[in-house]
């Protein structure tokens, strides 16, 4: 512990900062036709940041800086790896999308990089202030990016809704945090945990926890704080939607769990029932709403609400039953990683499919598989993976989720049954997309071959996502190291 700075440990963040500045400068210098260089730089910078990350992972040491506020341990590294890889895929998806629509490329990549920086900071945060800064840095740029399609009213609406509700949730979160600080006089998680041990019945603590949960609930779009999600997802540019549903959601998720897990373990009788309720509602409402959707992006929006519910299940169940939170945390983490990969794949398919079909409605996608079999197969892979059908990666996420709820306790058994029923409901609407693509006869016109071929970068994004989805599905051992990372947090934090 101390104030020395380990530059290797900070290297990923520093590289992203450097890239971000470089992008901004390049955007000023470059001529309009050459602006695509900003994309190249952003992609290269993200890839470069993975190198020190790998070195740190091999090194395997836990590095604690700034008096324990900023910790680089296995857990943080896994999350940073996830954020960077996901960001890399989002950049690949963005490249052609942004360039062809002639949006402000330089600013786009600058803002996205800033958001990524926020997620990296968040992963290492071990006190309330750093956590808050990281989390806000993730969301801030996204208010702008959601409205990036300036000419489209829907995009304006997306940005506006997201901004107003986001700011409200931030205020609630901050208020909750300040109450916690007021009660304990501490900001560090471990110190708070020690100080709250004797406080469990304090009304102010209850209020503080509930406020924070509401704030986080907005960030992860858990029911009943999900109303902004479908509209924002639909209106935002699709790569940003992918980013919202993966990186930004994951950041909110991890922040919520880490605060509850590390700072407030003693108060689990307050937040555990609330999480149980959030999980059950998110799964059920998300799935039932998704059933009725006819627009693929909206369908994915509700699906991501429901998936957030599934992700909460292990943690909520274990907390309610006072069981081992470590295993539950591990299950949530692996679910998060697998969800990130397959959901990014699904959005990449949506971008490619939208170019081909010129529409985002399910009906318009009818018969796509016959015109473009490869895209059709990819649709089947990602959507069935989201549904949890073996041998695609999603099954292992669902499996771990179910494994962690096998605790003999009425509340957890109820949650397990709700989850099992929801898994079947979810299958129905994921299958609806596959059905449209493969089973239905074509309704609309398809764009011709050459104009609609996915750009090279998008193909790469699809390739990475599909390779990971199949590989993890067949041999999940390659991803289970993620679960071990959760234990580091438990023992080392």
């Amino acid at each position, binding site marked *: 512990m101390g104030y020395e700075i380990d530059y290797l440990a900070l290297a990923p963040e520093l590289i992203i900062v450097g890239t971000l500045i470089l992008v901004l400068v390049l955007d000023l210098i470059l001529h309009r036709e050459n602006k695509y260089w900003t994309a190249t730089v952003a992609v290269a910078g993200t890839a470069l940041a993975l190198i020190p990350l790998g070195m740190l992972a091999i090194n395997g040491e836990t590095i604690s800086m700034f008096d324990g506020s900023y910790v680089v341990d296995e857990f943080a590294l896994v999350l940073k790896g996830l954020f960077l890889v996901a960001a890399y895929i989002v950049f690949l998806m963005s490249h052609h999308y942004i360039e062809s629509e002639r949006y402000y490329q330089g600013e786009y990549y600058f803002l996205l990089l800033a958001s990524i920086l926020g997620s990296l900071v968040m992963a290492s945060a071990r006190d309330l202030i750093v956590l808050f800064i990281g989390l806000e840095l993730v969301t801030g740029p996204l208010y702008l990016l959601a409205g990036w399609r300036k000419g489209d009213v829907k995009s304006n609406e997306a940005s506006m809704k997201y901004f107003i509700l986001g700011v409200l949730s931030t205020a609630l979160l901050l208020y909750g945090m300040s109450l916690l600080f007021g009660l304990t006089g501490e900001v560090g998680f471990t110190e708070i945990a020690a100080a709250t041990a004797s406080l469990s019945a304090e009304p102010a603590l209850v209020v503080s926890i509930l406020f924070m949960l509401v704030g986080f609930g907005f960030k992860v779009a858990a029911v009943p704080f999900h109303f902004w999600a479908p509209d924002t997802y639909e209106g935002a540019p699709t790569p940003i939607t992918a980013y919202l549903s993966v990186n930004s959601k994951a950041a909110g998720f991890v922040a919520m769990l880490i605060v509850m897990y590390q700072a407030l373990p003693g108060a689990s009788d307050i937040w555990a029932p609330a999480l149980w309720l959030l999980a059950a509602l998110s799964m059920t409402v998300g799935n039932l709403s998704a059933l009725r959707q006819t627009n693929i992006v909206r369908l994915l929006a509700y699906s991501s609400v429901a998936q957030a519910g599934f992700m909460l299940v292990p943690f909520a169940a274990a907390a309610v039953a006072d069981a081992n939170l470590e295993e539950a945390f591990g299950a949530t983490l692996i679910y998060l990683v697998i969800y990130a990969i397959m959901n990014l794949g699904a959005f990449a398919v949506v971008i490619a499919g939208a170019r081909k079909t010129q529409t985002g409605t399910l009906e318009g996608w009818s018969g796509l598989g016959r015109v473009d079999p490869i895209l059709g197969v990819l649709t089947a892979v990602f959507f069935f993976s989201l549904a949890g059908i073996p*041998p695609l990666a999603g099954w292992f996420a669902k499996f*771990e989720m179910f494994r962690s709820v096998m605790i003999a306790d009425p509340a957890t058994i109820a949650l397990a049954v709700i989850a099992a029923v929801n898994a079947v409901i979810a299958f129905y609407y994921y299958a609806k997309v596959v059905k449209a693509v493969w089973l239905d006869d074509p309704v609309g016109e398809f764009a011709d071959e050459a104009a609609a071929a996915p750009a090279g970068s998008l193909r790469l994004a699809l390739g990475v996502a599909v390779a990971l989805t199949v590989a993890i599905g067949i041999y999940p051992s390659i991803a289970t190291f993620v679960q071990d990372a959760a234990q580091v947090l438990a023992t080392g934090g």
Partner: protein
Amino acid sequence: MEWFETWGLTLTVFLPVVGAVLLGFINKENEDALKRTALTFTVLAFLASVGVVVGFDFGGGAYNTYQYEVNETWIGAIDSNYHVGVDGISLPLLVLSTFVMVLAVIYSWNHWDEPKNPKAFLILMLILATGMNGTFVALDLVLFFIFFEIVLLPMYFMIGIWGDKSPRKVPGFSKVFETRLYAAIKFFLFTLFGSAFMLLGFLALYFESGSSSFGRTFDIPQLTELGSQGFFANPTFAFFVFGAMFLGFAVKVPMFPLHTWLPDAHTAAPTVGSVLLAAILLKLGSYGFIRISLPILPDEARNWAPFIAILAVIGIIYGSLACLAQTDMKRLIAFSSVGHMGFVMLGIATLTDIGINAAVIGMVAHGLITGLLFFLAGSMSHRYHTREMARLGGNIKLMPVMGGILAFTAMASLGLPGLAGFWGEFMSLVAAYNPLDGLSLGVFRTGMVLGAVGTVLTAGYMLWMLQRVNLGEPSAEWEGHELHDVDRFELTAWVPLIILIVVIGFYPKVIFDTTTDAVTSLVEMAFGGDTTASITSVVKGS
């Protein structure tokens, strides 16, 4: 052949999927190359399974010892292994699976349902083959679950894309659906519902085994050993776990009242899809009962046995009566499966060696016979463009060979002695007369009587179908139609089935020799082996 000891089963399971990957690289237009590649890989898988038979030690050994065993770490984090192996119970089913797959590829050589696309169809068939073969050799619950689920996707697409396009009114919906879409999603949702609970059951076993000497395990042999020692004796635990697994397997079999997906799926599926569904997919459920439910939870199996027997008998009677109400030939055959699988489940429910032997031979026979019936129904509707029995009369005059084979198969299906279908029905009734000690004689003997009535009803509807389809004068509407009799691809696919039906009918020892040791020792291990009648007396009596 040292290497084959370790690689034999892996080859049998994964050769088809290797073929599927290769097919992906062959041009869609190049149909010959596609078919040849698919055939090559199914034949290779079949040869691998034959190799397994050749090297198989029929001396057996005690139950829960497996041959060609491979046990490698697969998912370390959840203690799940790639553990495969065969014994006398799974071997016949494995060979049946690889064998029928070869015939299905041969048959599909010139039979493509709309919208054709042989490439996609063959790829799906090969993936299906891997899932089915894998289920029969998996000795790890997670591995079993994965293979059990893998078969869903290809079958969903087969029914959904190549299935019956006629409209169908679904109760509760104002919209009219195409039959294929309705049947495909119904098939998937039913099975998924069952397997979600099955998975919960597996997980419960995993955690419960945590306090044993093995530690938490998904390993079937280890769990079987624990089961036979009475480790899972806690009645509430055993009840819920058995119930959860029952849901998963019973949907697949299917048992009354969870059978309603079957007539729709079978009728809507393309010919090859129905054949594979009937011949192999249904066996995954009954095999699960024998391999997992009975040995791991023997005490609970005793409690559930009368209940299973009652459902099985209801299935027999209900299936037969439903057959009598059908006008569609394919749907009739589909419902007959409900009845035949009822006999299989009745045999299993007796918990005796005779009953379980009856179940295994019943599964093999049903696979061969009903598979052939679906081939025939497919070929006939291919020619007549209808499956309405009322319009098909006089088939034997128009197509003598086809009619002859149909007559033969129907006889086999109704359980004519001397053909394969006889043994399963007869022996499961024998077993029901004398179930495991301690099971209610009243329930089982009543079941036997009702089952016997079921055999009469089976004969009734099969003969009735023959009369309507084969006999009589051809309807005037077929005059002037060029109706080709059986072609060479059909013959190549069907003759091996016919031969096997006769061989097993006259000489059931080919199956019993494989199964008896395993089954007897299974019953001994799980239920104390207190069986009154010995299997040998029945077999020798033949």
